[in-house]
């Protein structure tokens, strides 16, 4: 490819330099040329490529108004007809990763435009949209920007050099896309399989040609038969804590969860509780924490005999950027405590 390729760049409100959570609800807007991290990418690509436009959209907007946001993105892509779309990197930011993936779906699935982005492997956007983009693996926070940008640039350069015919994930440095591609091998399948088996028997490393998909699903529990006799507990990843955040649960990448007593509370108020979550605009949750953890309604249901009892403790952590391993460990501990206290059903709220 000798001509300079045209790139459209996608960013959220934060990296698009519009603002933080208070601007997360802005609809897509288009800027000429590169913005934010796009400048470094554009400079590094030099004469090979040019970011002609940048689309910036608030993370909350994209996730709450996905179809509208996609329509806007579609319009710009159809008008500009770029050779490549670059998005993020979004690290472990869930809403941003979902937005990068949503953009990739529009570009790649509908318009056949390849997409390069960067995500932390646990970002839900990767699992959901891995077919639609070449996702470079990044660290879990924006502190990894210094590595993420050169890695994305390297992949973009390789993409340009090879005219879009990128090699395998490990060779090129992107995460697997769950796609199978035909290629010619110099040894036939039976020989390759036996070679792998011998390596396996000898305890040596080998690379499977067909990794088994990881379906970690849990079968649904049996339903509750008699709600009026059931003890129900509230759990949230929305970061609701007593006012002052006594356990100092972190606003992102939480290293702990909290257990809080609500006996005697008919509901939560701005005076009694607040949110520790740093991944959404906290104004509404701080004004009335029942908007995230519905203690007021649960009390009414308890008084009316619709549920047997509201458990006198609730459990809370901050879902924002928290690793799957940590979330899993917290939930295992929480479940054990709930079972020990005779809880029979759980309502878990997420923002």
């Amino acid at each position, binding site marked *: 490819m000798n001509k300079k390729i045209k790139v459209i760049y996608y960013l959220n409100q934060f990296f698009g330099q519009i603002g933080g959570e208070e601007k997360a609800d802005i609809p897509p807007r288009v800027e000429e040329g590169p913005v934010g991290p796009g400048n470094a990418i554009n400079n590094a690509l030099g004469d090979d490529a040019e970011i002609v436009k940048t689309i910036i959209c608030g993370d909350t907007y994209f996730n709450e108004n996905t179809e509208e946001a996609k329509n806007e993105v579609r319009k710009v892509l159809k008008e500009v007809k770029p050779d490549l779309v670059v998005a993020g990197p979004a690290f472990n930011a869930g809403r941003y990763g979902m937005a990068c993936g949503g953009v990739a779906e529009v570009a790649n699935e509908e318009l056949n435009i390849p997409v390069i982005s960067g995500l932390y492997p646990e970002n839900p956007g990767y699992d959901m949209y891995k077919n639609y983009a070449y996702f470079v693996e990044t660290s879990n926070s924006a502190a990894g920007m210094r590595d993420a940008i050169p890695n994305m640039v390297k992949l973009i350069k390789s993409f340009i050099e090879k005219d879009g015919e990128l090699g395998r994930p490990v060779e090129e440095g992107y995460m697997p896309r769950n796609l199978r591609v035909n290629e010619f091998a110099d040894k036939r399948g039976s020989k390759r399989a036996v070679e792998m088996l011998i390596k396996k028997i000898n305890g040596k490393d080998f690379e499977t040609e067909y990794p088994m998909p990881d379906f970690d699903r849990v079968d649904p529990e049996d339903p509750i038969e008699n709600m009026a006799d059931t003890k129900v507990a509230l759990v949230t990843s929305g970061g609701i804590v007593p006012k002052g955040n006594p356990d100092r649960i972190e606003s992102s990448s939480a290293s702990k969860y909290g257990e809080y007593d609500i006996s005697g509370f008919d509901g939560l108020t701005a005076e009694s509780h607040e949110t520790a979550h740093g991944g959404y605009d906290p104004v509404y949750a701080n004004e009335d924490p*029942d908007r995230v953890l519905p203690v007021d309604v649960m009390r*009414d249901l308890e008084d009316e005999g619709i549920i047997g009892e509201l458990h006198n403790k609730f459990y809370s952590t901050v879902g924002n950027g928290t690793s799957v391993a940590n979330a899993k460990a917290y*939930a295992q501990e929480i*479940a054990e405590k709930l079972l020990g206290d005779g809880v029979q059903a759980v309502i*878990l709220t997420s923002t």
Partner: protein
Amino acid sequence: MVKEIERAGLPVVHIATVVPISKTVGANRIVPAVAIPYPLGDPEKGKDKEKKIRRNIVEKGLKALKTDIDEQTVFEDE
């Protein structure tokens, strides 16, 4: 978190704003919420109406907990 609590033997309903994330993390009973900063409310509706919205969502959650399912199910408005 939903998945681990359910794995331990407790039925869980996930009230979540971004339903695709809830599906990806493996929740089985899912009730869509209102908005990311206020999943169970709507500050523009006034106190009484807002509480009705919240009650409606929680009741949908209870209904989900009472429903026998075989696979991931999103309990939408009927």
